[in-house]
């Protein structure tokens, strides 16, 4: 039954801010001191002439607007996200408090260095944790996200190879890799070639060896890989690449499976980005911000980008210019200022809280939880590869064959049951992939409830209730949305009816 307002008790409709404009209204009262009125403009001939057209609202209206919007979102604070390769773990609230401390939030990156020694020390402390956890001698702290870290790692590799007079043109990327991998390689000027997977979902070492040669700059591996499996031949892989003179980049998105238990440095990795917003609990914020520091091997450390912390004679210093880099040869700068300090603070608060044993227990629980899902679901869903899995488990849509229910339909039905869908259609190496990563912050009761729901849905699909799946979700603020229409006729900004008519 539809209400006249479209509301449904606590589920409230909310218009756009542009549709709630009270001309002249503002929710910010600004001072109006006498000495600052009627001041003659110093903008030359560049003063704004026309109004902007921004809507004006009062504070109560603004608060209500965003409160109502927030209520339409699923969030990890509220429910389970079994999203493979995203590591949706709990975001500790302590992190938020620490990021807002005076002396943390209100410092400028270019203040006199003596006035921000605590900030430099914080960056250095976090760098130390990351180096010890990964067994690597150096880390570039400035990349803003995982993909940015990949780019940084590849740039470092390319510069290192050129420095030894051995520039190469090709980068090898497994078929199962995340799309950012080949995109990053391309942005670094490399040609990308795919490496096939074995029937066990891992990099085909023999096929890789056939592709190796003096023209291969690097391989980009993910370990554990995007199928949720540990590359059991990783050491042979890195050795083979090193033997032909290439270097090894590792996508560290899945580090949550092995943090505190396996060090990439021991596996022959030369560069690996860490996703602080995955393994290290910083919040996803609806899409960002993240941070993607890159740990580097001895072969690469001299080429890390600016800026970076060093221990000077008077305390900490930050090297911001090539001229101050001494024997190092930084290749340039990835980002304005120093990187994602606010995100780094949050990750440090988490690392300090967990401690060495806590992180080790976390990865262990993450792997345990994923294997539990595998054990309880692989008789009814189709498991893509034999286990054990690492922190995530991969199923494919063979169990939906002849049901007329697709992976997408299955995912939408999960929503009505109160779960965010798992990662769907990734990795591309299986058909209709369903990739589930529970993380260590879900308890057994939640997992059991989830297992019960998935089993029931799988049975329901196999018993021929496709129509129900096609109609899902039905209880959400919006039902399935027309993505074709959105792409064919893009409407990307609000236009009032009046403006549209003109």
């Amino acid at each position, binding site marked *: 039954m539809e209400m006249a307002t479209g509301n449904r008790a606590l589920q409230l409709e909310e218009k756009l801010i542009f549709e709630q404009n009270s001309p002249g209204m503002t929710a910010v009262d600004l001072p109006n001191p006498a000495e600052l009125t009627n001041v003659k403009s110093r903008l030359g001939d560049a003063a704004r002439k026309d109004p902007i057209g921004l809507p004006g609202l009062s504070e109560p209206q603004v608060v209500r607007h965003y409160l109502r919007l927030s209520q339409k979102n699923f969030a990890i604070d509220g429910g389970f996200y079994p999203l493979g390769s995203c590591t949706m773990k709990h975001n500790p609230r302590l992190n938020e408090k620490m990021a807002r401390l005076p002396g943390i939030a209100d410092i400028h990156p270019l203040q006199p260095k003596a006035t921000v020694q605590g900030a430099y020390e914080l960056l250095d402390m976090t760098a130390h944790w990351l180096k010890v956890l990964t067994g690597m001698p150096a880390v570039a702290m400035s990349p803003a996200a995982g993909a940015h870290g990949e780019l940084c790692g590849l740039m470092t590799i390319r510069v290192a190879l050129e420095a030894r007079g051995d520039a190469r043109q090709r980068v090898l990327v497994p078929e199962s890799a995340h799309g950012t991998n080949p995109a990053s390689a391309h942005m670094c000027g490399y040609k990308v070639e795919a490496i096939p997977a074995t029937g066990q979902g891992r990099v085909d070492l023999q096929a890789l060896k056939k592709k190796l040669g003096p023209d291969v700059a690097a391989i980009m591996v993910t370990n554990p890989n995007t199928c949720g499996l540990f590359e059991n031949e990783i050491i042979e892989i890195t050795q083979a690449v090193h033997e032909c003179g290439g270097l090894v980049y590792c996508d560290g998105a899945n580090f949550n499976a092995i943090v505190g238990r396996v060090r990439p440095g021991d596996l022959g990795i030369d560069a690996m980005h860490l996703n602080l917003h995955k393994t290290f609990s910083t919040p996803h914020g609806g899409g960002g911000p993240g941070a993607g520091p890159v740990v580097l091997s001895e072969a690469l450390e001299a080429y890390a980008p600016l800026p970076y912390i060093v221990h000077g004679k008077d305390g900490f210093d930050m090297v911001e210019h090539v001229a101050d880099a001494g024997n190092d040869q930084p290749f340039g700068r990835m980002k304005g200022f120093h990187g994602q300090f606010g995100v780094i603070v949050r990750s440090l608060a988490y690392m300090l809280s967990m401690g060495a044993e806590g992180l080790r227990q976390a990865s262990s629980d993450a792997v345990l939880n994923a294997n539990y899902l595998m054990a309880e679901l692989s008789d009814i869903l189709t498991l893509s590869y034999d286990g054990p899995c690492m922190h995530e488990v991969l199923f494919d849509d063979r169990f939906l064959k002849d049901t007329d229910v697709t992976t997408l339909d299955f995912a939408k039905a999960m929503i009505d049951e109160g779960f965010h869908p798992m990662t769907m*259609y990734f990795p591309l190496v299986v058909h209709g992939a369903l990739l589930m990563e529970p993380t260590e912050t879900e308890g057994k009761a939640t997992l059991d409830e989830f297992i019960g729901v998935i089993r029931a849905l799988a049975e329901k699909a196999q018993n021929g209730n496709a129509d129900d799946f096609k109609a899902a979700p039905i209880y959400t603020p919006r039902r399935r949305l027309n*993505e*074709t229409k959105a*792409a*064919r006729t893009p409407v990307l900004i609000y236009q009032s009816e009046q403006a549209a008519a003109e």
Partner: protein
Amino acid sequence: MATLKFTEDHEWIAIDGDIGTVGISDYAQGQLGDVVYVEVPEAGTSFNKGDEAAVVESVKAASEVYAPADGKIVETNKDLEDNPGTVNSDAQSAGWFYKIKFNNAADIDGLMDENAYMAYVAELN
């Protein structure tokens, strides 16, 4: 009467003399889902066989369309800009992408005819 040929990449070519009209097959549009955008080449551009000549996009995928033989683009289907859905509703006729003048009309001879293509598709499933 134009001869109709098909490639293994699911393109059709309707050949009239040395001009070929190129599009994607009905099977291909079904696989792709709702087409939201087609990137057609500029008239006057030359391609070698196998070069990427156009891109057809659905919501979740983008597929390259290759030049079936060496030649030069003489005309493109302007209607697709506003009506990309024509590729779904009428892939093998009104949903054509571009017309290409082949350097050597004989280059097309080796391609599959309609029966051979249907057999090829049946094999894929």
